[in-house]
Structures are given as C-alpha cells and as structure tokens.
C-alpha cells in the first residue's frame, strides 16, 4: 500500500511540481507506515530527502 502514491509523488517531483510532490509523499508515507510496507516507506523517505535538498535543507 502506498506505492501508487510514491510513483505519483515522483512524477510531480520530476515535473518540478514540488508542492504537490510533498503533499502526495505524505499520503504515501501514511499508508505505507500503517500497512508496514517498509520498502515503500524507504522510497517515500528518499523522495522527502530530495525535496529537502530542493529547499536547501
């Protein structure tokens, strides 16, 4: 659970739409955490790292 949202968030990221990417990655994290889908959580966290990089954090 959550893989579809990680993919959607990455799609937004690659288009440079960082706001939507951040919204959707939270959706992915919430779902993957609650269903203990750790591999999806790792992908979502990695995307969050990339989004933080965009913000200079």
């Amino acid at each position, binding site marked *: 659970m959550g893989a579809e949202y990680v993919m959607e968030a990455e799609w937004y990221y690659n288009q*440079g739409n960082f706001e939507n990417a951040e919204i959707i990655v939270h959706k992915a994290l919430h779902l993957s955490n609650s269903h203990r889908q750790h591999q999806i959580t790792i992908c979502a966290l990695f995307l969050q790292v990339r989004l933080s990089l965009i913000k200079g954090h």
Partner: protein
Amino acid sequence: MIPLWIDEGEFNSSRLLFPSMSYFNIVYGRVLLIKGEYLKLLGISEHFLSIASIFPNLLTSIYTTIYIAASNERIYRRAEALECLRQALDMAVEDKLYMPFVENCDFLNSLFEELYNQGIHKVAILSILELYKPYQKSIKKIIDECFKGSKPKLTEREMELAA
C-alpha cells in the same frame, strides 16, 4: 562523500538486485561526469542504455542521454552534444520530466542556450532554467553549510552508513 563502491561502479559487490541497476547507473553516470571521466562515460553509456531498455526504464534513458550530451560538450563535440540533448528533450517533454535536466544543468547551460536560439523545445528549456535557479541556490547553501568549514557531527553509526 561518495561511497567507494559507487565511485568505482562496483554494482556487483553490492546487495542490490538487477532491476535496480538502471537506477545505480543514474548515480554512477553523474559521478563519472563530476569526476571529468567523459571518455569512460561515453564508452559505457551504451551499456547503460541497454540495461535501461530491458524492463524498460525511460528515466534512465533520459539521464544517460543527458550524460552523453554533457560528455560530448566537454570534449568539444558540440554537434553530437546538441543532437543528444535534443533527443533527451524529445523523450522527456511529453511527460514534462524536467528534473533530470535541472539536476545536470551545470553541464548543460550553454547547450540549452543554443537549442533555445534554434527554436527547439523553447517552453521546456525555459521551465528547466526557471527550476534550476532555486535548485542551484539550494545546492550552494547546502555545500556552504555542510561541506565547508566545520562539518555536522555524525554518530559512529551514521559515519559507518555514510561511508
């Protein structure tokens, strides 16, 4: 710091499975570009593309074609560089996949300028250059804060993972 196994392209010494090799090549290609190993990158890029075509992986194809363009530009093969960048844009523009170009804009700026002047993918190029401004600023901020002067303190375990 780039881990040694990535720096040396040692995919087989990792525990990664074959389907992830395409993504490894995205990182490894950028490492070669930064290190200035343009001829090596041009030599093995065909292999990157063949790996990317197995499942297939459009993102890796775009990144690899960008790396080929950047390498050609650095060895003064401008016509080949422009043609490759145009091909990469052809692949990416329909889905508005701009970030692979933004992430490598430090190697592509002058090529974008020339393609723009030729009237090729003008809207996409403007979007990419617009995205590159804050990206460049953020990268500079991170480098200044974390990689110059005193580095952030990591725990022993964090150092182990970072290496």
